[in-house]
């Protein structure tokens, strides 16, 4: 599984021998690979006007390109805001609630993200093919797909340690611009230009996986909520800045504490573990039918619905498992 950003084909259909060579050497003689472009075919084509584009078939003959348009940027932010507003509106009737849930399109984005990740995973697992994922910048939807695909395919990323490693690799070191995406307004109306809840969308998709495979992730909802909180406002330096370069310039490692260190302390760790966890060596294929994708109540209704009875249920589960 590879990731990159878009090729700078541009209006003049530029070619780059080195780029072609890299993608050429990755594949064996006669082998086919897949490029999953997280933009629609049209958007990808449009990108040429501003210097970007797609890999032309003639220059990359062994690669098949598939487009799976995933929402990002401003529209994704709008989607998030609409959902949050729908959740906190007490005056809605049931009809209006469903209508607003639908028009926020948040769950559609979850479905699309999971589907695309499954597609990538399928290419790797079923087709034994290599996959290159990219969108425009390679810092948002690209990472969403590659991180989810790994969770689906690789049991080691489903352990608590492994998941932290996945986040470090596929989000933090890969250069997701946390500061631009998350540092300001979250779901309020003061909308920064670069704000977008892509990382939250990722966490939502992980939650969907945990719901569909309750035994297969070593961590629980509590961890996902903590990550959400810390991405937006944190006492730790883990999610600061927009890239490794910036973190080095700001001397983040020298002047802040790591969230992972804190989480992994024995006194803290147990809060984040899933009592039902049992190592599952197989690939986990989620269902992306609409009925299988649910609203992440623990996040979106966190301050609205009482969680007491559900917390009690989790305590019971813990008690039963630990009692054994």
């Amino acid at each position, binding site marked *: 599984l590879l990731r990159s950003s878009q090729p700078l084909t541009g209006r003049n259909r530029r070619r780059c021998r080195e780029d072609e060579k890299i993608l050429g050497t990755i594949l064996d003689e006669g082998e086919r690979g897949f490029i999953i472009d997280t933009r629609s*075919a049209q958007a990808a084509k449009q990108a040429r006007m501003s210097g970007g584009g797609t890999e032309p078939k003639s220059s990359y003959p062994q690669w*098949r390109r*598939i*487009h*799976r348009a995933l929402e990002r940027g401003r529209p994704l932010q709008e989607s998030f805001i609409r959902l949050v507003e729908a959740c*906190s*509106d*007490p005056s*809605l*009737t*049931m*009809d209006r*609630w*469903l*209508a607003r*849930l*639908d028009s926020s*399109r948040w*769950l559609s984005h979850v*479905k699309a993200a999971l*589907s695309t990740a499954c*597609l990538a995973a*399928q290419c790797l697992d*079923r*087709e034994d093919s290599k996959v290159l994922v990219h969108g425009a910048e390679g810092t948002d939807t690209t990472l969403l797909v590659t991180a989810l695909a790994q969770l689906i395919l690789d049991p080691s990323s489903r352990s608590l340690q492994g998941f932290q490693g996945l986040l470090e690799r596929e989000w933090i070191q890969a250069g997701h611009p946390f500061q631009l995406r998350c540092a300001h307004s979250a779901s309020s109306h003061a909308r920064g230009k670069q704000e977008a809840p892509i990382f939250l969308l990722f966490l939502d998709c992980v939650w969907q996986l945990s719901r*569909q*495979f*309750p*035994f*297969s992730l070593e961590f629980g909802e509590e961890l996902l909520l903590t990550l959400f909180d810390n991405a937006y406002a944190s006492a730790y330096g883990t999610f600061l800045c927009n890239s490794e370069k910036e973190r080095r310039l700001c001397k983040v490692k020298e002047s802040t504490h790591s969230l992972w260190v804190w989480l992994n302390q024995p006194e803290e760790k147990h809060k984040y573990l899933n009592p*039902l966890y*049992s*190592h*599952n*060596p*197989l*690939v*986990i*294929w*989620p*269902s*992306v*039918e*609409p*009925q*299988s994708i*649910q*609203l992440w109540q623990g996040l979106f*209704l966190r301050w609205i*619905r*009482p969680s007491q*009875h559900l917390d*009690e*249920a989790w305590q*019971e*589960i813990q008690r*039963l*498992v630990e*009692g*054994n």
Partner: protein
Amino acid sequence: NVRLLDRLSSRRAVVGTLYLTATHVIFVENGSETRKETWVLHSQISSIEKQATTATGCPLLIRCKNFQVIQLVIPQERDCHDVYISLIRLARPVKYEELYCFSFNPKLDKKEREQGWKLVDLNEEYNRMGVPNNYWQISDVNRDYGVCDSYPTEVYVPKSATAHIIVGSSKFRSRRRFPALSYYCKSNNASICRSSQPLSGFSARCLEDEQMLQAIRKANPGSDFIYVVDTRPKLNAMANRAAGKGYENEDNYSNIKFQFIGIENIHVMRNSLQKMLEVCELKSPSMSDFLWGLENSGWLKHIKAIMDAGIFIAKAVAEEGVSVLVHCSDGWDRTAQVCSVASLLLDPYYRTMKGFMVLIEKDWVSFGHKFNHRYGNLDGDPKEISPVIDQFIECVWQLMEQFPCAFEFNERFLIHIQHHIYSCQFGNFLCNSQKERRELKIKERTYSLWAHLWKNRADYLNPLYRPDHSQSQGTLHPQIAPCNFLYKFWSGMYNRFEKGLHPRQSVTDYLMAVKEETQQLEEELEVLQERLANLQKSQSGNNKVKSKQQDQSKQFGLYTSNNSLANTPQEYSNDLKSFPSRSPSQGDEDSALILTQDNLKSSDPDLSANSDQESGVEDLSCRSPSGGGCLPSEDSGKDSDEAVFLAG
């Protein structure tokens, strides 16, 4: 050479043989290894659709009342037509004797059958509630069904309600369904009574009916008024006045507070379910298709309306200490729903397995809910069909989701009850009234579902339930507003047979197994400790103790490794065998069943599930070029089709 199609992928068709028996439709797969069988009871068949013949054959779509949908393709059009005609006749019995319950034989003797029927005793239940007492008495005025033929022979009425008052009131009520006790709250004397609508028209009055309501009020000295709750929308109730019926006028009935709670009628509900099922049948719907379809059906809105009514009544009884009289039009649909939801909220006994059976017997069976008409035991007027009890059962599920520790039973219990309401395999839900059931001698000729469920109760337990848990005490208080988001689509019921949609491993089953194992271990520990104490007195036998301990640990070690096998999603069909305790409700899909009368006794609904136990099969071919959603899953066959990608 009949093909059984997978709903989501017409590619995954299996070829087999179709059999029609007196009671079932059976499809047996041709595959040499599995010979998997799909059994469908005729009683379950809701509709049969013969579709246009294609090159591959003549398609036949069977829709079931338990939401199973079976798509067959029969090669010859003539054969298909024959099957179609036969099924139409088989699925529409005209006599009760045609129903499965009269031929079903679980190999119990007469005494056991009788015991089965005695499991739920309503007299015991009323005594448990605390009646008869100073305020409430049994009345046998209806002993020969002479007053109301849809009521039971014994009803509980207020002490001051004489036979004269009861009879007079019954003449002023639709279908003669006079106010009678549904639930009595010992701690504050408040009660829930039920009836049908008064025949008040625009101005008619009835002294006895007014006295009846006064009697109800007097039976609760703690309050000087009662609520009268009409569960219909105000417009409907008002329209009824033109037909000489209507609702209670606060001016005529002293000390009542009247309240409309608008729950729609059976026709609206029938259509609502229909629309929701259409959404479920969409091929590869988008999230929008689904949500819009769900909203358009109005189904969750109706569920919420029933729940809100139950909450209102429970609040009146528990918090205000005020008695409530509930009615709708005829007092056998919405009234039953709302009274039983309220009772469930109020009294933790009804949240136990036994209590729930009692609740259904009381508010649905004994009070004359028209099971035959509503659920089509016999061929009848399609306009009478409506998912009334289904809605109540869903309300219970919604509550279970909000209060996971509060119910002694689990989702499977609800699903199996729903299944058997339609299956006519047991006699509990036949006919339209107690009178009809007695005339048919149901108890002598059929078996009770409750005994069957009770025998298998280990499958139906909720591992999170503890009688001493806070959630299983007292009244449940669901959040009122905002609360729309608390209502979820029940895919476990409406997509029951599409295993690919559901979490692959049952947390419930796992936790039950854990609970059982812990219990076994604790018992073993006790025994061993005792033994050790005894042996410490004598010198010999130490070795015996050690080897016994080793055996135990080996045994339990095996158990835990079985659990990890069970957690492997893609081996779902295998893990059913590795659960050491039991899994009868999942059936024996893998065993080659011989089609004899013996098999007909295996009544478990999931046995007839045509579900593909292998979950999570990825199927590239169903992906549309525009990137429509697909059901990814795991399959041994490789369905790659690069043409799809090229088109994308």
